[in-house]
């Protein structure tokens, strides 16, 4: 009997050697006359277990991981392809692994389970059910569904998606656009990448539905160039969708039309800001535009445009298929549905954790993450990317909710959680935040362009012990100027990690041996 096994194929699994493992298993199976059908799935995003090999059985899928080259001989000796066998790497049924079992995977229900480029796999697990319904509904009914779901922009700004769609629907124009922001530049985030590499049809489906809802016939996915595999997978998926009448003219005989193209960014973090992204798509320098006008009114090529994050669009098929209420039933307060959190940095069990809003940050970091990778005490956590605040232990019990985080002066952003152990020097981290802004500022407004450079200089003086107290005062003043005076979130939020580091980890700025009361002119 041919036994089917699954070997993951996303960027991280490959980076950990999954391709080589797949090749070696194939060779060994041939040598031993064992008939294996090796299928490449995406990944479950339980990254400490990658490469995670799964074996299909009548009881479900049995997992083994993390599988290294040196483990293959013993795995074959244990006849791992039978599934329920004894082996040090045996994990039992994959669905029963606590990390996975305790999640609420709505958007990520399929990842790791399916072959990312198999339309039939996708359809077997509710794929295109949302689109089928959408094709029978009028535009306003579609927008209403998204409004009722309570979905808010998952890129970080958390603006209600349905309101944005309504604005575009109401804007009169011959040509409107759906633009997917796939410029996932925040360190510690990879949920967009997972969608695109492991379940690309879900994003395509979400974009078609968005097009139907607002009356747009052209979509663009603006993808960062740092994601070569996502680029390849998306293009293959779009080709398959065209080949099966899911994109292009007269989709599934409905008379509806939607075209979709992937465009590559070119290594500019600022292009994740929606107006900068639009400039870039138009073939220009990614300079931020002043708002208003909103992109929903004057967007790409001057036309009404929906700009949504990958995760916002990826949530839409579920909402249409299962109903707005099913989505809105999850969550707390004004944060409805789920957020895919990403555990990264110095973490023992890194990966994707999709949860309804509400649990505490500490539950995420310890119950799921298991603390630090190297076992040292956790000291600081940066949530929400390079523009997010660093949280000290006193804030770890904050509930995962947009408003609760805002109360703490922090952001959930795109859901990235980067953990640091007690060896971290927070003045060095603060310096990096400013340095990053120097490298990535678009240069349009002065507080961001010049403020960041001055920020690096001032922090360098503090770290060198020069006039520490007065320079800290100066840095605080500079941060306020940047927050209040910058045109967009780049300059406006770069101070968040700096201010939080100064507030909660002040000792790290006072370490220098030079006198802190030096009165020399600053």
């Amino acid at each position, binding site marked *: 009997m041919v036994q089917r096994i699954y070997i993951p194929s996303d*960027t*991280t699994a*490959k*980076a*950990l050697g999954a391709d080589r493992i797949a090749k070696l298993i194939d060779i060994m199976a041939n040598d031993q006359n064992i008939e294996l059908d090796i299928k490449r799935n995406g990944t479950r995003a339980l*990254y*400490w277990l*990658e490469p995670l090999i799964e074996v299909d059985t009548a009881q479900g899928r049995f997992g083994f991981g993390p599988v290294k080259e040196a483990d293959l001989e013993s795995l074959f000796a244990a006849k791992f392809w039978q599934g329920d066998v004894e082996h040090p790497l045996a994990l039992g049924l994959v669905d029963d692994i606590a990390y996975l079992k305790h999640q609420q995977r709505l958007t990520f229900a399929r990842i790791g389970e399916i072959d990312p480029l198999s339309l039939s796999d996708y359809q077997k697990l509710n794929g295109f059910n949302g689109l089928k319904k959408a094709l029978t509904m009028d535009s306003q009914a579609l927008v209403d569904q998204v409004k009722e779901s309570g979905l808010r922009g998952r890129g970080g700004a958390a603006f209600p998606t349905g309101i944005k769609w309504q604005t575009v629907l109401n804007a009169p124009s011959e040509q409107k656009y759906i633009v997917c922001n796939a410029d*996932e*530049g*925040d*360190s*510690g*985030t*990879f949920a967009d*990448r997972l969608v695109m590499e492991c379940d690309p049809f879900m994003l395509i489906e979400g974009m078609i539905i968005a097009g139907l809802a607002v009356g747009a016939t052209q979509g663009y996915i603006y993808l960062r*160039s*740092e*994601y*070569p*595999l996502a680029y390849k997978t998306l293009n293959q998926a779009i080709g398959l969708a065209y080949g099966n009448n899911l994109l292009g003219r007269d989709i599934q005989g409905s008379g509806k039309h939607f075209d979709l193209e992937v*465009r*590559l*960014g*070119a*290594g*500019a*973090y600022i292009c994740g800001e929606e107006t900068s992204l639009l400039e*870039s*798509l*138009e*073939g*220009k*320098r*990614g300079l931020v535009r002043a708002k208003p006008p909103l992109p929903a009114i004057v967007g790409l*090529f001057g036309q009404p445009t929906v700009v949504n994050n990958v995760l916002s669009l990826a949530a839409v098929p579920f909402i249409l298929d299962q109903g707005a209420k099913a989505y809105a039933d999850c969550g707390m307060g004004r944060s409805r549905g789920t957020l895919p959190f*990403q*555990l*990264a*940095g*110095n*973490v023992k069990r*890194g*990966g994707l954790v999709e949860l309804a809003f509400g649990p505490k940050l500490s539950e995420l970091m310890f119950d799921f993450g298991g603390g630090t*990778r190297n076992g040292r005490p956790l000291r600081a956590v*940066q949530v929400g990317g*390079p523009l997010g605040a660093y949280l000290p232990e006193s804030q770890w019990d904050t509930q995962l909710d947009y408003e609760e985080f805002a109360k703490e002066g922090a952001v959930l952003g795109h859901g*990235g959680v*980067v*953990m*640091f*152990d007690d060896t*971290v020097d927070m003045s060095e*981290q603060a310096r*990096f935040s400013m340095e*990053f802004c120097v*490298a*990535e500022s*678009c240069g349009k407004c002065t507080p961001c362009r010049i403020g960041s450079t001055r920020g690096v200089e001032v922090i360098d003086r503090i770290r060198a012990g020069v006039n520490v107290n007065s320079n800290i005062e100066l840095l605080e003043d500079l941060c306020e100027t940047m927050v209040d005076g910058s045109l967009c979130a780049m300059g406006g939020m770069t101070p968040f990690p700096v201010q939080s580091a100064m507030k909660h980890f002040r000792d790290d700025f006072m370490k220098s041996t030079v006198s802190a009361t030096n009165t020399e002119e600053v």
Partner: protein
Amino acid sequence: MTTPRFVTWEPSIGQAIIEEFKAKPGALLPLLHAIQDRFSYIPEDAVALIAGALKLSRAEVHGVISFYHHFRTKQPGRHVVEVCRAEACQAVGARHLEAYAKSILDVQYHQTTADNNITLEPVYCLGNCSCGPSVRVGDEIYAEVDTQRFDELIESLKTERLEVQ
């Protein structure tokens, strides 16, 4: 690992690429990518051709090229090695790796080794944030790169037989 096939700049090849892309809405970025993918960089001569085809000034094209970190106007070494210096990798030793990479290759960022084999570049996040430090070479990403793994990687780039076009 595959080595990208680059060719030496030739106006006729450049012109053919320009013809393929110039009618696209917002053609400049896709066009610059296609040029760099083919020639490994964007030659000065290409800038003039692109400007002409898209009815832009050379300064405007240059402005776009210089805005984006990905585009380069000088030919890189045979391999471009990008080291992630973003926070998630910092939390697991990226600063040490950066310093090590610069010292053993004897270059700073944006520079190429004396044997023209490796150009070292910084990168801000490769989306491999649970398993850093991360390094990219061509289209391959490497996870959990400590100094030993970095040495092995560099060694494999030295010994790899290059595809010849």
